[in-house]
């Protein structure tokens, strides 16, 4: 019924790797005439181990570039345009024709009536040229390690997050648990960053991040446990496969997809979504960097590209959280329309699974953006109370409901 655009990422990259290695081998064999020991190197490159390793490296690079270059810039652009619209203005509009060098410096082209898509790239280039300042009193080693910890743990979520039934790096049986574990590493980095900068704002921001972790991570895990009663698995591909069918209620097939959000898991969905908003530190729960109270929270002392990385990777966490919500509750990449055209004998899907998944991810992200620019920030005691006196009872109730539905059948 459904078809991914990339049916097998590893297989696709293996063809590419084999071609590259074959070319390199031919060059080495040609050089092996005057330098005979090189022939052994050429044979070594052709072994299965080298080809597999290089293929995995290419697969990982493809996914990292897809996530950081394409999706990160797009989601930042979406947010900047969307919140500008909420504030009744157009937002970034600088077009590519404002660049001062050759193919772009046409006269008579409007320079400030574009979409502004490359604005974030320009901001990144600006941040690369900025000086990195380390405060004199800071714990230098920890101050430099924590952005790496935050950035790499955020990226690690995408090692397991599948973009379709074929476009993923690793297919783990405990994939959902792995993503939640990767998420929960970043508050540790935030705590280290807050403490090591030796600044009062960062200290308060870091400790607030720790307090927030205490309040949202347990409800998120409990909501996933309530879901496990129905799925019996934590493999994202298996979970999405279970939702790719219509609801059958009392013998009649309804025209509603069997997403887990429709049914007894609705309470768990609400709890998990609120916990994920807290996890990505968006506005109702952005107390670790409440810019009205603590200058920029735990990122106050970071400058240059360090600030750029820790600031931009929050959008990656939003992407990963949206993807996780859509996999668990909103049917992942299952979609209503799957048309294929045949190019030669190869079927190419017009609306592939990736399209439906990206649509869900961006729809959820747009919802989070609108939400975060519409509501005020909660206080630290309020978030602890929301976590422990609302979300945990509700998630325990969701577990009871799920267990009861399984008992009744």
């Amino acid at each position: 019924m459904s078809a991914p655009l990339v049916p097998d990422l590893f297989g696709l990259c293996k063809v590419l790797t084999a071609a590259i290695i074959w070319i390199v081998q031919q060059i080495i064999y040609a050089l092996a005439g005057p330098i005979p020991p090189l022939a052994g190197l050429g044979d070594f490159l052709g072994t299965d181990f080298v080809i597999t390793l290089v293929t995995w490296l290419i697969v990982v690079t493809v996914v990292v570039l897809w996530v950081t270059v394409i999706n990160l810039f797009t989601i930042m652009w979406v947010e900047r345009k969307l919140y500008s619209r909420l504030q009744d203005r157009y937002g970034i509009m600088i077009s590519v024709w404002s660049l001062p060098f050759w193919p772009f410096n046409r006269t008579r082209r409007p320079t400030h009536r574009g979409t502004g898509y490359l604005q974030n790239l320009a901001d990144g280039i600006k941040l690369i040229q900025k000086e990195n300042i380390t405060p004199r009193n800071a714990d230098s080693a920890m101050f430099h390690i924590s952005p790496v910890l935050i950035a790499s743990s955020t990226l690690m979520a995408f090692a397991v997050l599948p973009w379709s039934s074929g476009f993923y790096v690793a297919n783990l049986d405990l994939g959902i648990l792995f993503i939640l574990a990767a998420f929960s590493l970043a508050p540790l980095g935030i705590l280290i960053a807050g403490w090591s900068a030796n600044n009062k704002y960062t200290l308060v921001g870091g400790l607030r991040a720790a307090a927030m972790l205490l309040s949202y991570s347990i409800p998120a895990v409990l909501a996933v446990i309530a879901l496990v009663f129905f799925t019996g698995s934590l493999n994202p591909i298996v979970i999405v496969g279970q939702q790719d069918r219509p609801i059958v209620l009392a013998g009649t097939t309804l025209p509603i997809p069997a997403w887990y959000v429709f049914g007894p898991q609705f309470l768990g969905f609400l709890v998990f979504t609120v916990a994920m908003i807290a996890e990505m530190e968006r506005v109702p729960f952005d107390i670790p960097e409440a810019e009205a109270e603590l200058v920029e929270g735990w990122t106050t002392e970071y400058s240059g590209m360090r600030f750029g990385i820790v600031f931009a990777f929050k959008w990656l966490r939003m992407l990963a959280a949206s993807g996780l919500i859509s996999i668990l509750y909103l049917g992942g990449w299952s979609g209503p329309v799957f048309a294929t055209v045949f190019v030669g004998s190869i079927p190419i899907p017009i609306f592939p699974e990736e399209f439906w998944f990206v649509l869900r991810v961006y729809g959820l992200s747009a919802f989070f953006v609108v939400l975060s620019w519409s509501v005020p920030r909660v206080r630290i005691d309020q978030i602890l109370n929301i976590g422990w006196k609302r979300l945990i009872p509700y998630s325990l109730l969701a577990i009871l409901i799920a267990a009861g539905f399984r008992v009744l059948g």
Partner: protein
Amino acid sequence: MALESYVPVVIFAVVALLFPLGTFFATRLFRPDHPTPLKDLTYECGEVPEGEAQIQFHFQYYMFALIFVIFDVAAIFLLLWAFAWGGLLTSASPVAKFSIFLFLGIMFVATQYALKKEEVIQI
């Protein structure tokens, strides 16, 4: 078999670690580096910073932290129990099936009782 599927994750971890490190080292080629004593001061809204920030911070939510540790362990029990639930349903023994609800109930009541005294928190 199970361990083999984690090989790409390990490779991904290496690349994910090298990505920010490489970015930070690459910026050295483009950015200036002129530290001055005034620049290296701790930021405190333009004032000369007063005292240290690495102090004994009043850790007000220690009660939440304690209960968090308990729930963290309990979450693992619950996860295993949820996995085994389908198998438990077919077994006859009600003890294995329902005793964890008693555990959950005790834990929930104790948590809410312990949090009653944590009414006001300021950080």
